[in-house]
């Protein structure tokens, strides 16, 4: 589904991604973790072309990002993305947030789009808030709306970029619950997160990044059981002590 092939990226002289190679197969849930500044957010944003990269290539469902003939907006419309800071469109009501992409990108009529939006709002438990503006919702509610907005496009894969790290602690679980449910339904997911409980529960594989490199790429059991690299061991011991 996603093949990341020897991707390198520089911000000026700074090498943010160094020869990253990995893949996500259909139905797989891959958690990407690592210390801050390790390049994990940058890596996930390269997958749908939100961040450019200088070397290597990425294929999503067989379409190569570096191919000049690739229609990036079309490719992005099939890849759902959830951001750390939700990034709902604050000037649009919740339903309009959910319908915009459906109508302008997929060409659905308002009625079809609204039906889909309503169904997905129900699914994330927010149908009562359909006619509010994003600013009137809590962080957890906004992030659930953001997930619903991505799902409205019927994505073939979902990318999550630290979806719970901007949330108050008591709201983390309502978002993780939605994500767990999604994973159990067989959605292909790539998730940048520090929530190791979530990783243990639903991940198939865990990727550990440090200083722009993929240091560890292992099954969940191998990663939590016996991480090979010292850096991953240190990272785990730091975040799992409490």
């Amino acid at each position, binding site marked *: 589904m996603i093949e990341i092939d020897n991707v390198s990226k520089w911000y000026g002289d700074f090498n943010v991604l160094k020869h990253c190679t990995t893949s996500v197969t259909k139905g797989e849930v891959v958690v990407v973790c690592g210390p801050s500044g390790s390049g994990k957010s940058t890596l996930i*944003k390269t997958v*749908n072309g*939100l961040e450019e990269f200088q070397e290597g290539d990425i294929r999503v469902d067989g379409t190569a990002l570096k191919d000049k003939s690739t229609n990036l*907006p*079309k490719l*992005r*419309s*099939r*890849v759902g*993305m959830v*951001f750390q*800071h939700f*990034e*709902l*469109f*604050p*000037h649009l009501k919740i339903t309009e947030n959910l319908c*915009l*992409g459906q109508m*302008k*990108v*997929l060409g659905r009529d308002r009625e079809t789009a609204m039906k889909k939006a309503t169904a997905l709002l129900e699914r994330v438990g927010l149908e009562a808030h359909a006619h*509010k*503006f*994003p*600013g*009137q919702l809590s962080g957890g509610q906004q992030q659930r709306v953001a997930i619903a*907005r*991505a799902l409205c*496009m019927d994505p073939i894969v979902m990318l999550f970029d630290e979806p719970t790290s901007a949330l108050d602690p008591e709201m983390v679980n309502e978002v993780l619950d939605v994500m767990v449910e999604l994973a159990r339904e067989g959605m292909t997911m790539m998730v940048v997160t520090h929530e190791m409980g979530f990783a243990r529960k639903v991940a198939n594989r865990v990727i550990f990044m440090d200083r722009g490199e993929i240091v560890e790429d292992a099954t969940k059991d191998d990663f939590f059981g016996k991480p090979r690299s010292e850096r991953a061991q240190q990272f785990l011991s730091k975040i799992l002590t409490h």
Partner: protein
Amino acid sequence: MSYNWNWGILLEQSPEGIGSYLYTLWLGLQWTMLVAAGAWILALAVGSVLGVARSLPGRWFSPLATAYVEIFRNIPLLVQLFLWYFVMPELLPRSWGLWVKQLPNAPLYTAILGIGLYMGSRVGEQLRAGIQALPRGQMMAATAIGLTVPQAFRFVILPQAYRIILPPLTSEFLNTIKNTSVALTIGLLELTARARAMQEYSFQVFEAFTAATVLYLLLNIAVTFAMRLIESRVAVPGLGVLKK
């Protein structure tokens, strides 16, 4: 100071034979409003293009827009108006230049063009500031759902940016109205020109300019209220920058 106050002068006939002095001021106000409206529409259109162009880095049109802004906001408006009115027709091919000079209402079109293009550079800077004030993630979120860059601007970026810059846009609109007085130098009989004419015919300088001042004030207060109304109309509940 010995000055003969005579407010009654406003109702006396002006020697131009078109009605009272007050009526000539009213005619001037109409021209002022016409120039202001035309220039403001032009400024919004030009400013929108400039603001968007300057927000898209690394393309050829961004430096072009920057050059426009720097040229138009750094030359005095009065000089720009003279350039458009006296110099530009001479630079055109002869037949075009003649056509321009013979245009009926040439001062009107020149004033709208000159003031509009000048104010456009200012509106463009405001819009650029508004666009830059948005979180970078908004553009990412818009393109992530598959919107093209023009669609992202149309449906996500600009509706927010214009809301943010409404208060400074009100000031720019008021500036546009006040700047129309410069048009008297190219022979447009707008409000200030009418007040000067009244002063010259009647020697009642205080009454003439007091009346003009009051008319400018009333017009600008009306515009301020109208813009406030628009602000509250488009306010988004829960959007921080627009909280009352």
